[in-house]
């Protein structure tokens, strides 16, 4: 999981430091911290805590920076697998907004009374691609069948058990009729960005990754990809929801409203997401 802390201070105290020194250090740090807190309160909406599916890891950084600039709010973004966040939120994780890669999770939170009924917003539809590193000899233009090649020893996908992109990858492999041929060569990333990292580091020979990650500055020039036909898998409908237990309900709502603006829609499109909301209007 990656944390991006906008307002945060790290206090490191070695336990070997004599007590007097520690007390001295504390006397310094404490007023500073409370000053920081006071500053945050003055801002229009304080700190908004966001749990985001890992396919958003790069897009969300950009969105967060823009949002902070235009509103003065601070965003604290944690990325991970949607299923994991769902479990954590059910067990009281202190998030304000949840961006899931699978709209079923926020909908489940609605049914369980953790989010307002009918409040889930379909912000994007994700796509998967077959990806190999630039130095790979595989011809991805041939599509998923290229994975049958015996030189492909490991194929990275996200864990289908709790990562929506993993489920889509497995579905596509089954629909293409090669799942049984490759299932022993699958390595499962804890979330889609770990799967991307397995492929990017060369430890896996190929990966079925989120288009949004492949288009990110980090992966853009590092490999070749082939778009997996959308008829091979259920659309990866992504939903965002404000949690009823949000500590900063107002800020959370402001952020979700911001997500609906055309600027964000354009940004998401640039990352390869399809925008159902835009098509409707």
């Amino acid at each position, binding site marked *: 999981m990656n944390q991006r802390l906008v307002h945060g201070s790290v206090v490191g105290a070695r336990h070997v430091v004599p007590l007097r020194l520690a007390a001295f250090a504390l006397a310094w740090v404490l007023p500073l911290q409370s000053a920081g807190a006071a500053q945050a309160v003055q801002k229009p909406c304080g700190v908004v805590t966001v749990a985001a599916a890992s396919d958003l890891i790069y897009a969300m950084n950009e969105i967060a920076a823009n949002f902070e600039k235009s509103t003065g709010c601070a965003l604290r973004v944690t990325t991970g*697998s949607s*299923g*994991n966040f*769902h*479990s954590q939120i*059910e067990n009281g994780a202190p998030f304000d907004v949840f961006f899931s890669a699978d709209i079923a999770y926020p909908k489940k939170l609605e049914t369980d009374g953790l989010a307002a009924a009918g409040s889930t917003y379909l912000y994007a539809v994700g796509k998967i691609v077959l990806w190999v590193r630039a130095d790979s000899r595989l011809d991805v233009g041939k599509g998923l069948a290229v994975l049958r090649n015996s030189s492909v*020893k*490991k194929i*990275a996908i996200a*864990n289908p*058990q*709790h990562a929506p992109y993993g489920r889509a990858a497995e579905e596509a492999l089954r629909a293409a009729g090669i799942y049984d041929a490759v299932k022993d060569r*699958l*390595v*499962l*990333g*804890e979330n889609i960005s770990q799967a991307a*990292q*397995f492929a990017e*580091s*060369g*430890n*896996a020979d190929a990966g079925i990754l989120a288009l949004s990650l492949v288009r990110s500055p980090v992966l853009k020039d590092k490999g070749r990809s082939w778009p997996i036909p959308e008829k091979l898998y259920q659309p990866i409908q992504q939903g965002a929801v404000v949690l009823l237990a949000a500590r900063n309900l107002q800020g959370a709502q402001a952020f979700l409203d911001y997500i609906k603006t055309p600027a964000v829609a354009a940004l998401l499109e640039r990352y390869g997401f399809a925008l159902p909301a835009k098509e409707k209007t």
Partner: protein
Amino acid sequence: MNWEAIALSLKLAMCVAAILLIAGMPIAYWVTFSRWRWKFLIEAIVALPLVLPPTVLGYYILVGLGPRNFPGKLWQSWFGHTLPFTFGGLLVASVLYSLPFAVQPFSAGFETVDRGLIEAAWTLGASRLLTFFRVILPLSAAGAITGVVLSFAHTIGEFGVVLMVGGNIPGVTRTVSIDIYDQAQAGNYDAANSTALALLLFSFLILSIIYGINRRALSLWRKS
């Protein structure tokens, strides 16, 4: 309950404990009896896994030993594959990660042995190897048992490194800790709970048995 994962974790832990028993003894012996002035550097290296988060080791195995770097290329040319996503990879990671849990108790055990007895054995003509097996090891059996048990237990409990370099392959790298994590993430609390509970009871049982034996070994040693 996922028996495949439990069996895999047991296999991994047993291999790690066996390797560390064999490889850890000479290291511990050297650390205990060497008078080299820079010995503390080696001691620091052995103790590193106590301090480092598992992600550091995981990162180096994944990237440093990955196919894009020289050590990884060398490994690949010898074994035909890279370390991540294999049982061998988990084994290498676990041995490194549990090293201090074996070496430090071994060494602590050796230190309790009376130098006079060791030197007496030498003056009576016993070789260093014979002295080790007939004098030092029997007198420090408690330390040896503790080291083996701790490295076994620590491997069963390993999670971070496996999550980073394992790739979650059933029967190969999906250890019991990963299985519990997956079940919990997927919201299958019943499955997570049954495996977690089994692991909890098993760990308690095996530690109790071995600490019991250890205590008897200690008391025997005190009587003699």
